[in-house]
């Protein structure tokens, strides 16, 4: 069985950045497994610009952003296999995968980086009544058809859900000559980035109807129209608010789900809020030597933060592999047991989750970034961080929204001045 130091599952932005960081931190034997025909993941179909503002201080398109990482992966001679599907990962880190050339094969590795990304929530998960005609696509599928294949899926479009891909596709289909009639969002706020609402909807006069949903789908062979209705605070349609829209295409942009079948299969503990693994400060899961980053960990808005997070996972995976080989030598002459103290992070009062969910102060870097999302739109609030009830950090925020990921930075000094801290609370509070 072929052996590696680190195997990265997925060759999208998270996989690429984590592999590069692992290589830069001295690991030679790295393998990236990618199921698609090329590296770069979803960036390849995201032809709009706006990527890389944080990382490269310029606005790139998705393929350009991906190319910068792919070129470095090639330059640094990191090996990768394309068209390769991982079928199973065992808890003892034996990976079963298959491709055309090698058939079904197994590889063993010291560390694993989970970077499988996410997939779109589909119509079946929404329980929209009505027929099942042609013309209903997820926004990402429409993006693939338009940008990669050069097909326009329809002429008259209604979009359900105001996630970023839906907003991007509203503009894209408009530019290609389609008429986007409306974007309906179930929630009273948009799930997309503000800049996308401005540049994809406002620029083209496309109305965004908040607190609205689709209650009927018409057409037997091809979609002919949908019925929109306002919803009340419980998400139930309000009688008498129905509006008919004729359309031949319905795009769904109703959320992304981390793709964690492989993680679950190997016993990685999952956070029900993010649908991604629970991780510690090193972005390591409850399975030793198994790290996670990018959209498989929690869905991001900006690829820049995916790359940044993935680099942390790659660096820690490298550290793990190096420690493991050193420990094997030292373990023979010492019985020393490392005492691991874990501090739990508790998201409360408006904060839905945190990544990481635990911190081991002895293993943390000088600064620890904690990323999280809030559960509603908040204006002029503060984010408060408490170590066992004692305030250590306050950050003012003019606007916080569920669609925009937040972060706070915890420093090593905070932990040094609170050596016995048991839990850290992060919450939204009044100024």
């Amino acid at each position, binding site marked *: 069985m072929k052996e590696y130091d680190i195997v990265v599952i997925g060759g999208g932005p998270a996989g690429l950045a984590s592999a590069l960081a692992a290589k830069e931190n001295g690991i030679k034997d790295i393998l990236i497994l990618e199921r698609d025909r090329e590296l770069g993941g979803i960036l390849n179909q995201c032809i709009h610009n706006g990527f890389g503002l944080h990382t490269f201080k310029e606005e790139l398109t998705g393929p350009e952003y991906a190319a910068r990482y792919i070129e470095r992966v090639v330059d640094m001679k990191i090996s990768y296999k394309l068209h390769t599907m991982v079928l199973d990962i065992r808890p003892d880190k034996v990976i079963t995968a298959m491709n055309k050339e090698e058939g079904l094969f197994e590889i063993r590795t010291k560390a694993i980086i989970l970077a499988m990304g996410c997939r779109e929530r589909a119509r079946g998960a929404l329980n929209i009544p009505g027929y099942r005609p042609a013309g209903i696509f997820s926004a990402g599928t429409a993006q693939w058809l338009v940008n990669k294949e*050069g097909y326009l899926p329809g002429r008259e479009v209604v979009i359900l859900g105001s996630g970023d891909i839906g907003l991007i596709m509203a503009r894209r289909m408009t530019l*290609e000559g389609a008429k986007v009639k409306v974007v309906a969002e179930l929630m009273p706020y948009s799930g997309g*980035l503000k800049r996308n609402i401005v540049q994809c909807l406002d620029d083209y006069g496309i109305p965004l109807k908040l607190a609205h949903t689709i209650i009927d789908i018409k057409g037997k062979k091809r979609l002919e129209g949908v019925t929109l209705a306002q919803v009340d605070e419980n998400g139930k349609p309000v009688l008498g608010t129905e509006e008919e829209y004729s359309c031949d295409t319905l795009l769904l942009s109703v959320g992304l789900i981390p793709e964690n079948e492989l993680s679950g299969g190997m016993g990685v503990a999952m956070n029900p809020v993010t649908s991604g693994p629970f991780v510690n400060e090193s972005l390591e899961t409850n399975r030793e030597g198994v790290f996670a980053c990018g959209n498989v960990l929690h869905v991001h808005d900006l690829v820049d933060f995916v790359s940044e997070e993935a680099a942390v996972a790659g660096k820690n995976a490298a550290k793990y592999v190096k420690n493991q080989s050193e420990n094997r030598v030292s373990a023979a002459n010492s019985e020393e047991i490392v005492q691991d103290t874990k501090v739990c992070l508790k998201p409360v009062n408006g904060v839905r989750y945190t990544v990481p969910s635990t911190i081991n102060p002895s293993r943390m870097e000088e600064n620890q970034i904690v990323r999280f999302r809030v559960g509603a739109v908040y204006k002029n609030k503060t984010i408060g961080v408490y170590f066992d009830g004692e305030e250590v950090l306050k950050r003012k925020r003019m606007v916080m929204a569920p669609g925009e990921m937040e972060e706070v930075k915890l420093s090593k000094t905070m932990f040094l001045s609170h050596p016995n801290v048991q839990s850290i609370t992060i919450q939204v509070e009044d100024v």
Partner: protein
Amino acid sequence: MEKRELTCIGCPMGCAITVTMNGMEIKDIAGQTCKRGETYARKEVTSPSRVVTSTVVVDGGTERRVPVKTQNDIPKDKIFECMKALKGIHITAPVAIGDIILVNVAGTGVNIIAAKNIEQQHFV
């Protein structure tokens, strides 16, 4: 005095900016949290511009289409003219990032460049 409400797109923060105008004259810009916000608002009310991205057909490549973009932003009212100019363009692989696809699109003085490397398709 006319007030225009804008959302800054300089960064994910998305500051809500209010520009007070007297005809074409900017009287006040408020709400931004950094210099970029002011620059954005000033430009947005006087000469709004956008980077346009699309795709064109590639012949003989490993992919059917190559993503392209305007090398710089172009006036907002030239977007559809730019899209029209891209219709029907065929280029031949290989294509490299930065290759000029079309010079001076829609009379804007801005070139359309390739945004992806596409290799030649070799048939075995």
